């Protein structure tokens, strides 16, 4: 907490220790100290607020709130109380209360610049743009400082941006903002660069590009100095909008002469050139070509401009830029697209790319540069191209194994580049199995040979030849996918282990490949900023039964997203303070993008499901868990229509040919895949909430409160959620029938397909349908419900059968040993997880069934006693329920036994003893063995966690007795 400045105020001195306690996290002492102080000084309001902060931080939210309100109603005007309340409200996530606080304060002290400014910021935090506009103006009237005036203008712009009605923005908010700025311009009161920026923003949004251009080029534009080339960039943008291609062209020319490596201006140069050609633009009879100088409006001029750039570049002794050479290729592409014969004048692409390779082939980016121009070739040129490039790769004489190797890192990089290009051209994919194995051998030789150049590399540096290793791993995967040969997979994992042992910082070796087979410890991954890692980990950890790891990564993601929600507002406020107006809409869009993140919704949903599966009704009752996560079955908090896929898939290195690369269709499919799965999970979660509410209906005493928390479920929501779940299941089934395969280095499939094939979705649906019928039975009673009872009994029976079927699908060896080879069957683990999840749900539902049947049974017994009847038949529903509970018991026993036997056989399995085909070198065998050991221990860990959970669940069976 910020230290307060005024030392002379005795209250500050008195409060000091409380601040210190709070700052040090000693909330208890803070509360005590505050109590002590309040005994002596009843009216020291701030002490109360500080006590409230202490209470809030120790989890006593309600008390804290009541105490804070005691002070807030007094409408305090002392700095201490106001600031403390602001902090408290922020921690309570109630920023709207801060606005109330300062509204009162400015009412009482209308001339305070400080309070007005706090009020403005408080509005900014909650996005009340109209009130911000007024608060800014009020501030300016008290203290006529320019920033305040422009805060008000910016708030008008924000009203325009956020208005649903575009017309309102264009005819009211923006013109008003424009007039406000114009007034200042006329009075010559414009002071800061930020003010000109804002003016520019307004004109741009109004589409007044001519006026904007005048501002940028006029005296006001001289203030635009912070950003480099700010005026030029703005002019360029406006020329494009105004379609002033002559100026656009001339300015690109000028900027390219200054920096012949800036790609964006080549693009603009070409774009404008062809527009001018299409318009048959001709220079004016006299005077300059354009406001920006000379214009190129013919192919010939463009060709000579390119050639001049290259001549200039060639004349330089060192540090050649790549821009001019690549721009020449880009021009060829564009001329060819327009079928211009002049394209030939620039040269043959194959030769030009060869020359480029000669110059830049030893740079790691050479592959990225040339890759985008590979489509200039016809397919029959591919081999020729690669052969031509090999001429410029200095390699030594072939060794015993027939592989010629480079003598230094530059030669290595050149060879690597050709290899990468060859993969990009599809040449590696075209090889048969034998060819691919030969290629792997060669790549490995290059990899191991290259390690000698990196002997002095630090731990934080990568090996020069790492990419060979990764590529060989990719080829192994190609082979595995083609042939289904498990050995290829083991060798791939072994090779990645080998790579890691020499280059522990290379994240690519850790990337998702191993995840398809097993889970590995999170700590071995480098932190990425936007949750791609957590996304993958949650996906795999959970489905493979490593619940602790899954929880951990969900938590990590949620912390990230929650702090984003809080933090972004602070930076919006900062942007106002520093006049970074153009960043404000950007921050708001960023916040929305994160809030609508698919992964955020996934992490929220999976986190809650995990908590329930792991804890509910074992360590705490289901209704407690549901309540503590404020799960509300009626409420759907996922923004389905605007879910954003924020995964950064580009982080995975691949040199696959274009037709095997990740494309938009894959991305779309993956988003749909994940969304469907999320929908299923979210509906399941809400249905569990319903079951909990049914089992423990809120008692009348605190019913008001529970309803407020949303725990009370109406039967209607159960019905509607069930039919939604059914619909989604149908959609999901249709979706999985499409069976689109993702590229291996790309998005990972959701759990949908495996879940459907395990039968868990259908089984969960069946069990969740039970409560509906039980509700009916509760109303009808036992006496006149024979048909209903038969129906329920049949449901119980069918459920038992479905569960048994699911369990059968879990049976089998996780590491199947056949013909002296082992085959990981992780889908068995996944099925086991689905079985356990389903068991949890079935147990909760059964618990509810028990709670309905128990009173029915006891009233029946009472009746019997009264009538003194000698035993009659038990009503069918009661016996069916009892049968069902005992079959559950036997199912769980079977499952536990299966897990135990798997644990025993896995532990006993000596994978290293299996023959590793084709692996003679003992060192290599060690790496493969390391990979195998990792898989083995990962599976064991999964089994342990699943087994423990299942045991806990089995213990709750006795509570089902009626």
């Amino acid at each position, binding site marked *: 907490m910020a230290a307060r400045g005024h030392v002379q105020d005795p209250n500050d001195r008195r409060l000091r220790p409380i601040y210190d306690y709070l700052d040090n996290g000693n909330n208890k002492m803070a509360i005590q100290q505050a109590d002590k102080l309040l005994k002596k000084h009843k009216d020291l309001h701030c002490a109360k607020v500080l006590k409230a902060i202490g209470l809030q931080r120790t989890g006593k939210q309600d008390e804290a709130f009541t105490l804070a309100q005691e002070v807030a109603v007094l409408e305090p005007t002392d700095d201490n109380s106001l600031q403390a309340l602001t902090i408290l409200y922020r921690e309570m996530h109630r920023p709207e209360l801060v606005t109330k606080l300062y509204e009162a304060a400015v009412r009482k002290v209308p001339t305070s610049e400080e309070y007005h400014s706090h009020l403005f910021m408080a509005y900014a935090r909650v996005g009340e743009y109209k009130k911000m506009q007024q608060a800014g103006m009020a501030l300016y009237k008290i203290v006529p400082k320019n920033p305040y005036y422009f805060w008000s203008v910016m708030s008008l712009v924000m009203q325009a941006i956020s208005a649903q009605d575009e017309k309102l923005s264009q005819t009211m908010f923006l013109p008003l903002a424009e007039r406000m700025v114009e007034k200042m311009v006329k009075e010559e009161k414009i002071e800061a660069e930020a003010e000109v920026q804002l003016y520019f923003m307004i004109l741009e949004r109004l589409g007044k590009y001519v006026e904007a251009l005048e501002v940028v080029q006029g005296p006001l534009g001289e203030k635009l*100095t*912070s*950003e*480099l080339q700010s005026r030029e960039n703005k002019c360029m943008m406006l020329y494009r909008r105004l379609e002033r291609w002559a100026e656009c062209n001339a300015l690109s020319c000028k900027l390219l002469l200054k920096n012949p*490596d*800036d*790609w*964006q201006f080549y693009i603009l140069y070409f774009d404008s050139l062809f527009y001018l050609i299409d318009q048959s633009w001709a220079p004016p009879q006299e005077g300059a070509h354009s406001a920006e100088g000379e214009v190129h409006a013919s192919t010939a001029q463009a060709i000579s401009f390119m050639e001049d750039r290259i001549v200039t570049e060639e004349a330089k002794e060192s*540090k050649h*830029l*790549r*821009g001019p050479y*690549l721009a020449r290729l*880009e021009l060829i592409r564009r001329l060819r697209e327009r079928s211009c014969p002049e394209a030939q004048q620039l040269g043959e692409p194959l030769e030009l790319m060869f020359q480029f390779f000669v110059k830049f082939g030893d*740079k*790691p*980016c050479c*592959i*990225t*540069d040339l*890759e*985008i121009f590979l489509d200039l070739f016809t397919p029959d040129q591919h081999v020729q191209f690669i052969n031509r490039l090999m001429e410029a790769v200095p390699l030594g004489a072939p060794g015993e194994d027939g592989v010629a190797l480079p003598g230094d890192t530059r030669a290595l990089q050149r060879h690597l580049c050709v290899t990468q290009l060859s993969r990009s051209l599809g040449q590696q994919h075209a090889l048969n199995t034998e060819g691919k194995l030969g290629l792997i051998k060669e790549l490995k030789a290059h990899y191991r040979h290259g390690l000698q150049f990196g002997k002095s590399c*630090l*731990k*934080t*540096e*990568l090996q020069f030849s790492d990419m060979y290793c990764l590529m060989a791993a990719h080829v192994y995967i190609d082979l595995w996918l083609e042939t289904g040969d498990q050995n290829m997979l083991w060798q791939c994992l072994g090779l990645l282990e080998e790579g890691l042992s020499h280059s522990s*910082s290379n*994240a*690519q070796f850790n990337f998702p490949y191993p995840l398809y087979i097993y889970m590995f410890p999170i700590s071995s991954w*480098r*932190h*990425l*900023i*936007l949750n*791609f890692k957590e996304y993958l980990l949650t996906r795999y950890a959970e489905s493979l039964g490593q619940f602790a790891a899954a929880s951990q990564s969900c938590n990590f993601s949620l912390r*990230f997203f929650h*702090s*984003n929600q809080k*933090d*972004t507002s*602070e*930076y*919006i406020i*900062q*942007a106002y303070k*520093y006049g*970074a107006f*153009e*960043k404000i809409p*950007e*921050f708001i*869009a*960023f916040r929305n*993008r994160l809030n609508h993140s698919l992964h955020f919704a996934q992490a929220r949903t999976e986190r809650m499901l995990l908590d329930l599966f792991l804890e509910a009704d074992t360590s705490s009752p289901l209704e407690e868990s549901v309540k503590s996560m404020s799960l509300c079955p009626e409420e759907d908090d996922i923004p389905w229509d605007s879910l954003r896929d*924020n995964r*950064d898939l*580009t*982080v995975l290195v691949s040199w696959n040919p274009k037709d095997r690369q990740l494309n938009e269709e894959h991305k779309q499919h993956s988003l749909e895949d994940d969304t469907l799965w999320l929908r299923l999970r979210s509906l399941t979660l809400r249905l569990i909430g319903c079951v909990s509410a049914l089992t423990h209906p809120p008692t009348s005493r605190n019913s008001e409160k529970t309803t407020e928390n949303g725990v009370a479920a109406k039967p209607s929501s159960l019905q509607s959620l069930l039919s939604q779940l059914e619909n989604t299941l149908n959609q999901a089934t249709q979706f999985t029938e499409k069976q689109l395969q993702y590229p291996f280095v790309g998005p990972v499939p959701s759990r949908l397909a495996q879940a459907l094939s395990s039968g868990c979705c259908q089984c969960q649906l069946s069990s969740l349908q039970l409560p509906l019928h039980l509700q009916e039975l509760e109303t009808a009673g036992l006496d006149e419900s024979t048909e209903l009872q038969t129906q329920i009994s049949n449901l119980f029976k069918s459920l038992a059968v479905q569960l048994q079927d699911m369990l059968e699908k879990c049976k089998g060896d996780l590491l199947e040993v056949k013909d002296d080879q082992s085959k990981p069957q992780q889908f068995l683990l996944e099925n086991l997880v689905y079985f356990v999840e389903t068991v949890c749900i079935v147990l909760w539902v059964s618990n509810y069934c028990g709670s309905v049947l128990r009173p029915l049974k006891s009233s029946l017994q009472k009746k019997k006693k009264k009538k003194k009847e000698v035993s009659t038949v038990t009503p069918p529903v009661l016996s069916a329920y009892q049968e069902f509970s005992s079959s559950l018991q036997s199912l769980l026993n079977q499952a536990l036994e299966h897990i135990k036997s798997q644990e025993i056989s896995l532990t006993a399995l000596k994978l290293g003893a299996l023959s590793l085909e084709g692996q003679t070198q003992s060192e290599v065998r060690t790496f493969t063995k390391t990979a195998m050991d990792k898989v083995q221990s990962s599976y064991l860990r999964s089994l342990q966690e699943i087994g423990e959970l299942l045991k806990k669940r089995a213990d709750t069976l006795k509570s089902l007795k009626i």
Partner: protein
Amino acid sequence: MTTLRAFTCDDLFKFNNINLDPLTETYGIPFYLQYLAHWPEYFIVAEAPGGELMGYIMGKAEGSVAREEWHGHVTALSVALEFRRLGLAAKLMEMLEEISERKGGFFVDLFVRVSNQVAVKMYKQLGYSVYRTVIEYYSASNGEPDEDAYDMRKALSRDAEKKSIIPLPHPVRPEDIE
């Protein structure tokens, strides 16, 4: 062969390839937003023709003008592995220096791990010299010892006599630096 432009929030979604580098720190989102809100002109990204992000620089202006300590500071500079050895870092540094010149800074400074020899060498080539050593500036998370930093400086034209870069005779502690 690079597009140099202002870093925007959306770039945070795709700069992972740069930050995979073991010596590049990945900060929390607030840290980046703070820079974007306060010094947007100092946050520049380089983009390849294919759209990949190649590298970025993030900096700020700070210090007292009266005490002749107003200067540009390099907070982060990183280039993706495949775009190294192209002079991109030098280009980005040049831009940051130019911005600092315009703001009337006396010098530009930066902190670098003592062990990061590649970077230290590069900064020396760009005209930077070690002004002081900061003891245990980088805290290690995995039980390894904390690491020292070099505070490296380069004088700008406003400091014609290069007073700002005269090396301190003794190392300092992190709490002693402003």
